[in-house]
């Protein structure tokens, strides 16, 4: 019996930044592994380094030291072009501020990653997934003509169009009201389950984090595995 390789594997990754007061290490050596299909929540207070870690894992930023393997590929030794290719092939993203291209329609926003990756029939794929998120009637609307919840559903559809192996989500419900948050959460986890995608989710919403299989806690640049159940604060 062979053991499936880890989808994400980090070894002692650190991140340093240069400030006016000199060099500052904002991530302490971090090592952890995420298995394929696993859902992981990274929780922590604002400024704890969650988004920095997400940026490094997604190849949006470079590590100052240590190793990151994504689906068996050494992300830490890749240049910008190679990281872009990897993101296009294997990674999907969902952001707190939706990050839709304002001058493209909902349908075109969804088509965008498929076109960049050079997949066949991007429009058909986009229409299908737009239907899945229940926004086929809004296909030709521009982002500023959609509500926040609708925009995030478009963003989710965009994230899944390339069938990514990993989905990184940064506070996906942070900008939404509770009704829309629930809708978006459900959609995210349903699609995740359906496509067996590995999910890495950054949030400070404990309720959302609890829906993930694992919870990692970030505090002052240090990452620890959360073993105790999270305390859910009503209304959070």
């Amino acid at each position: 019996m062979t053991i499936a390789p880890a989808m994400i594997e980090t070894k002692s990754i650190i991140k340093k930044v240069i400030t006016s007061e000199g060099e500052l290490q904002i991530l302490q050596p971090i090592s952890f592994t995420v298995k394929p299909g696993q859902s992981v929540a990274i929780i922590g207070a604002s400024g704890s380094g969650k988004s920095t870690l997400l940026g490094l894992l997604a190849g949006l930023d470079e590590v100052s030291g240590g190793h990151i393997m994504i689906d068996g590929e050494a992300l830490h030794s890749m240049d910008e072009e190679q990281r872009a290719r990897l993101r296009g092939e294997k990674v999907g993203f969902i952001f707190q501020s939706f990050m839709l291209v304002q001058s493209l329609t909902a349908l075109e926003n969804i088509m965008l990653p498929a076109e960049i990756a050079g997949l066949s029939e991007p429009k058909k794929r986009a229409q299908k997934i737009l239907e899945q998120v229940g926004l086929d009637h809004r296909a030709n609307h521009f982002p500023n003509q959609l509500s926040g919840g609708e925009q995030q559903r478009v963003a989710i559809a965009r994230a899944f169009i390339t069938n990514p192996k990993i989905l990184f989500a940064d506070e996906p419900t942070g900008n939404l009201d509770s009704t829309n948050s629930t809708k978006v959460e459900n959609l995210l986890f349903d699609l995740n389950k359906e496509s067996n995608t590995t999910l890495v989710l950054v949030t400070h919403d404990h309720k959302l984090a609890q829906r993930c299989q694992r919870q990692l806690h970030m505090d002052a640049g240090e990452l620890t595995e959360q073993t105790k159940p999270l305390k859910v604060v009503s209304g959070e």
Partner: protein
Amino acid sequence: MSTVFQLAWRLFKHEAKRGELTIILLAIVLSVGSVLSLSLFSERLQGALTDRSAEFIAADRQLRSRELVDDAWLSKASEFNLNSAYQVSTRSMVFGPKELALADLRAVDANYPLKGSIKVALQAFGVPQATAELPKSGEVWIDSRLFQLVQVELGGNVDIGDASFKITKVLSEIPDAGFSVFNTEPIVLMSTEDLAKTNVTGPGSRVSYKYYFTGETSDLDDYYDWLRPQLNRDVHRWTSIEDDDSAIGRSIARAEQFFLLASLLAIVLAAVSIAVAAQRYSQRHYDPVAIMKTLGAGKSMVQRIYLLQICFITLLGIILGVTAGFILQQIVVMFLADIVEVSLDIWHWRPLAIAIFTGIICSVLFSLYPLLQLFSVPPLRVLRRDINTTLSSKVLQFSTSGIAVFLLMWVYSQDLMISAILFVSGIILVVLLLAVTHVLIALGRKLGSGSMGSWTLAWARIRRRAMGNSVQLISFSITIMLLLVVLVMRNDMVEQWRDQLPEGTPNYFVSNVTENQRIGLEVQFAQNNVTGGGFYPVARGRFVAINDEKIRTEVTKEDAEVANEGRQGLGREANLTWGTELQTGNKIVEGEWLDSWQEGEPYPLSIESQIAGRLGVKLGDELTFNIGSEVIKSTVTSLREVNWQTMQPNFYFVLHPKAVENFVPTYITSFSLDESRKAEITSLMAPFASVTLFDVDARINQLREIIDQVSMAVEFILILVLIAGALVLIAQVQASMDERLQELTILRTLGAKGWMIRFSVINEFLIIGFVAGLMAAIANEFSLYMLQTQVFQMEAGLHLEYWVIAPIVGALTVGFLGAIGCWRLLSLNTGELLRKMV
């Protein structure tokens, strides 16, 4: 279609529809449109003016020769599709029934004149009317003066050489008569066929030949290229109106330089607006680029997508700009149709090529740095919105923009001097402005603290957005400076033109006036309410020695020909005058005027500075003249600058009256008589039959007309540049309003009162406009000084009024535009503002 093309096209299509590209598109349209309309209009106008001025040489080009030229030269001209005509001129005695006089004999062929027209009158000194006819065989048309001199009537006969001719017309004017009150004999016009019959052009006679050519400029140039190797400098002289050193020639040359300057400034304005717009365009695309990179697009893909977008925008901008520019100049030309005859039929390709070239260079070079910034936006921006771009090199930005502007100016003007002057002025302005911005920041630090009012808020914002404001300040100042340069240049130029021919400019000259006649004329003028100029004594003298050293090299004939109008007359003999009063339009540049002479000192003499330079004469030199059999010696005590543009008798040499007290001079004078009193001239001059009268009214009117036309055209160019400048200012305010959106939204959301936000924004713009205006006025002085002294050969002076006007108008204009911009933003409710920010 490739994915990249599809993506670029899709982005372009949507952004164009949603108005996202309006600013950059407008900038390109503006640049292409203004450059096209200005260059097309100025090219057409120059064509019209050159055509009009060509009348002064009766052709587009003229070949003057002292010998008959080979017939093959003329047949070659027709091979080059040129029309040609010729004139033979000589001096000859004309014999009337009782009197005789020396006349300027002009024999012309049937094609003469190729440009302009011959004017005739029904009686001597009558109202001139154009005619298409020419004297027939056996006929002559003679000058009004000759009727007086040889005492003959219209219809009578005169003998010239061996032939007799019937006088059938009073000749008022031929286009290329030239003008000089000295040494000019009355003209007799006849056909070339009759010239041989007179036998006056035999050996020993001084005959000159003029060959006239018209045709397309390229054909004329080609013909000249063919002809040039065969020309002999001593015998032939090829001229065009551009070589004309007369008042008209200079006015036109200056106007051409002004058009060039205006077009150059339009290019710079366009470049500034594109730079502003490209920066804004780039900043608005930071998010899409970060998103695309996050979704897997490599840098090269992003580069291709946005370069294609710029291509689409440039192409659309050029198409719209060419259309707008063409329509604009068509409207201006139609509006000007009654004043200037500008042909719309000829299509000039050069302006179109320049406009398209400008559009491409501007959009490519000025988008380059913003695009490089855009390409370097890291994907991490999707998580950290504060990250903008990793490329930040103001040196690179300023140097690429600077080089681009300079190259564009140089390529377009092909005039290194104008380009360098404007460019250096621009750099001085930028350096000045950077210093001022630092002062402003320091000031803002003091003024921007304290209780929150609209002024405090404005100062605080200026301090906070120091870099952004300095860029904005620079672009506002450059725009205002360029507008000031064009405005002041136009005012100074038109004023100087008009000064040449003020109201009451003499339109008649009288020469050969004896002492007795002088007294009689003075009385006659006074009784008839005629404003006369002064009477100047004149004697013709041969200039023979400098410091007793005989002159070997005389001033050549060519020099005399180059010298125009008033300058003529210094050939073999000089026209000398004397007096102790300095003539108007004369200025002592070295030494002391004659009135400082003391009894016992050598007789003083004043010499015109340019001729002094040519003759190698300096202060203290003793000059010797022979007047008749007398020898006159005088010492040069002053050099004078003479304004040859004034219509008054001007002299190279002015002697002290004591030096020539034994001579009985004749006098020359001038007077002005209104058009309405023209009929009085015969009765006015009747008692003075022997004096020589010159009617220069036609010449003055022609000059005045051309100056009016050029002034009018210059004014329209000014309006075009002002419109271009206003659009640039709007684009700049609009772009900066975009950057203010976030702050306005926050202030609004926090409950700041609308009026306070509005006034704070208006106040901020008022401050920026004021400073920009002041800086522009300072830089304007430098540019103008350099342009006027180095390029336009005009007198330069300070323009202090603009030190007050520019800051006030700058503050009001920029403040007003800012008010409109923020009114639009603040008319949105908080929700709409927040949505606009996303």
